[in-house]
């Protein structure tokens, strides 16, 4: 028996918390959203700024990974060209489920100002998107807000149930 007489039922006495499986799984998922570095254009600079010390994504548990197999969320930051479209699909397929996609900025949302032959008119033509961020380019605060909204979305899910894999079609 411990000498200091811990009251196990008292709040804050020991790191014991009563919760549901749903909450703890969602807590783990939503607070360690490892993001894939997907800077395609100028939005990528804002994404880097959000990851660097001033805005500091680490405190959200969002750490940028250079591999799709280690990441949970793909932040598509920038203009997606038609030449690159097959690679974004391949990288998305390589991510393990559950996986999420944030479409960052006008170009990724709709093609933006690039109303041309070489630009995909929105990444949601290629991969399913969970969150669209407006702006050209969105400020790092917008991306932080977007990640918080995504966390909210993840927490609203029933984690215990088998999740239906997202498919574009």
């Amino acid at each position, binding site marked *: 028996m411990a000498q200091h007489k811990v009251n196990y039922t008292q709040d804050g006495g020991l790191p014991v918390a009563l919760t549901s499986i749903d909450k703890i799984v969602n*807590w783990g998922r939503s607070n360690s959203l490892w993001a894939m570095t997907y800077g395609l254009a100028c939005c990528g600079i804002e994404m880097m700024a959000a990851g660097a010390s001033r805005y500091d994504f680490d405190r959200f548990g969002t750490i940028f990974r250079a591999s799709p197999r280690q990441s949970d969320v793909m932040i598509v930051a920038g203009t997606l060209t038609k030449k690159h*479209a097959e690679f974004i699909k391949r990288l998305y397929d390589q991510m393990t489920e559950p996986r999420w996609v944030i479409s960052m900025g006008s170009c990724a949302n709709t*093609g933006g100002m690039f109303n*041309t032959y070489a630009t995909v008119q929105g990444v949601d033509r290629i991969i399913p998107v969970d969150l*669209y*961020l*407006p702006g050209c380019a969105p400020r790092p605060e917008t991306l932080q807000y977007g990640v918080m909204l995504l966390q909210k979305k993840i927490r609203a899910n029933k984690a215990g149930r088998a999740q239906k894999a997202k498919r*574009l079609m």
Partner: protein
Amino acid sequence: MRAYKPKDNVQAKAYYTDRYYVAPQVPKTPVDEDEVFAADLAAIKEKFEVHDAYIQVEQMVVYINANDIYGVLELMRDELEYTQLSEMSAIDWIAKSNQFEIFYQMLSMTKRKRIRIKYFINNGDAVQSVEKLFRSADWAEREMYDMFGIEAKGHPFMKRILMPYDWQGHPLLKTYPLEGDEFAAWYEVDKIYGKEARDIIGPELRDTARVDRYDSERFARLGHEVPRGAEVSDDDPEVTQNYQEEGGVFLVKKLDKESSKVIDDPQR
């Protein structure tokens, strides 16, 4: 590639056109006015036929025969000290004369002069590669092939450089629509999902004037986000930005705006 159609009047006509308007021309001056250029032109004329030559914006423009290009550039590099090929590409004159105009922009660092060598080729003809003379012509000729479909004879790797290898059409031709032809519109869908997916994914939305405040995703209004497919009424209430759920989150401290410290000083 699609059949060629004249596109002289493809843009909407202006409401008002000045009948007496004369398009401004960049003034051309004779070559004799510049000693260095005159000497260079004389050296080129000694060995090759020159159709036209003038000075425009302090640069000499020389028109030669298409077959002489390798010889002219070799002469300029080895004897006239024009050691750099800054740029080369083509101009589409198909609507006017079914021809391409090819230009080579040369720079001499010692003389501090620039010369533009030009010639015309017929649509469908190939040009002579100068990649052996200037390494910079390697990618420039590939880009010219990619954008105009003009092949360079003797190039070691005559493939597309910007567009994907399986692309159809040459985008810088004046007949190529800016928003792409049908092949371009369905390129990524066809390649990734197959032609059957066209009906499911749907055509590209390219109407730039389309404004839909209540589109399904509503990504255009910060603080008013709704889940996809949610019903949006006309008079939606002001939503304050709520970063977290009402009851708080497991193991995460709830954001409290009153107790949080706001840093006002940007120079902190």
